[in-house]
């Protein structure tokens, strides 16, 4: 069984994993990082989106062995010193979540979007979030939240 080293939300882990173990199951079932949920099996929904080496990935479509040596940030690793990340705060302010199941992936995708485009238009936000499905909000408030998050990051 391959042994991998991976950093998750700032903590280093060494784990023996079956090759077929999905990164999302490593996070959820082995490391107790249940903040990242699973919504599909075809990489469409994006609920499981995490940062891997600084870029958003769908953790249901990455094998744990592929993440060997990688640095993973999940929704649980965003808050610093008990203060929510500005994007988390923006989602709260704009009521950009209802059931909250898509939210971890959506927030990570939104942060990644701003990494590439710090001041996105509404259209750029909508296209940038095309890989994350939400069934509750109709996306309007998510778009507003990303605008708000962008405003915080680029004063």
């Amino acid at each position, binding site marked *: 069984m*391959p042994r991998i080293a991976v950093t998750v939300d700032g903590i280093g882990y060494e784990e023996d994993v*079956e*090759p*077929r173990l*999905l990164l999302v199951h490593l996070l959820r079932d082995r490391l107790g990082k249940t903040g990242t949920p699973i919504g599909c*099996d*075809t*990489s*469409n929904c*994006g609920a499981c*989106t995490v940062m*891997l080496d600084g*870029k*958003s*990935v*769908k953790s*249901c*479509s*990455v*094998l744990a*062995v*592929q993440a060997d040596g990688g640095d993973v940030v999940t929704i649980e690793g965003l808050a610093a010193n008990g203060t929510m990340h500005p994007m988390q705060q923006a989602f709260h302010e704009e009521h950009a979540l209802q059931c909250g199941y898509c939210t971890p992936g959506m927030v990570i*995708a939104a942060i*990644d*979007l701003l990494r*590439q485009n710090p001041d996105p238009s509404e259209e750029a936000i909508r*296209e*940038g979030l*095309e*890989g*994350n499905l939400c069934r509750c909000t109709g996306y309007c408030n998510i778009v507003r939240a990303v605008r708000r998050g962008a405003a915080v990051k680029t004063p």
Partner: protein
Amino acid sequence: MIPAPFDYLRPASLREASEALASDEDAKVLAGGQSLLPLLRLRLSYPSLLVDVSRLSELTGIRDEGDHVFIGAMATHDDVTRSAEVTAGCPLVALAAATVADPAVRHRGTFGGSLAHADPAGDLPAVALALECVMVTSSREIPAADFFLDYLETALGPGEILLGVKVPKLGPGWGFHYEKFHRTAQAWAIVGVAAAVRRSNGSIQEARIGLTNMGPTPLRALATETALRGVELGDAVAQACSQAAEGTSPTADLHAQPDYRRHLAQVLTQRAIRAAAGAP
């Protein structure tokens, strides 16, 4: 869902990778995994061994090599989209790569992987065909026209690994466009058209057209390419593009019947040609 068990090899060398693949006919190459992982999870594929080629140096990088740009097989769609070499030398590749799936998938999915997977609904095979790319493998070079053999089937032999692609730089005077038609942003193309057009003195000198999802492999719209030669932008373009579906054999699926796909090929080819030619 959960993949069935398989073995995993992260080879130290290209040779080790080739040997492992050659010695086990149920072994599969693992690149970014963005096409493979869903198939594994749905248990539509049961490989015995995955050979993870992602860390082999021979497959990485994007380089301007004079008359062409070399795109390493492991370059992700995101890398390709943002590459200065690609944007300058073969922008059509960047335009099409930017339409693949969604940002997170583009961070993992690779240029080489999507060509080797050879899904005719994928956006890049048609581009590779239109641009007359050359596939560089662990043992030879294969022109794109000879690479795509059938649905999900390429000319790659046992143990043969796609290292990268030479994308010809078409030079000044060429314009490009990728026209993708799909029902939702993350859905596969019902039809896509990759167009490269060289214009001078107000008329089209040369056009190359790759069709996505119009048959079991990517296809060239050769009749239209011929008919476009020397025509001015206007009704003649429409006339030429009405032949875009000639020689195609589009499939029927959930999203479209063949006659509709043929119709779309004509409409979208015209749009792609006009956009590539810089028509208003």
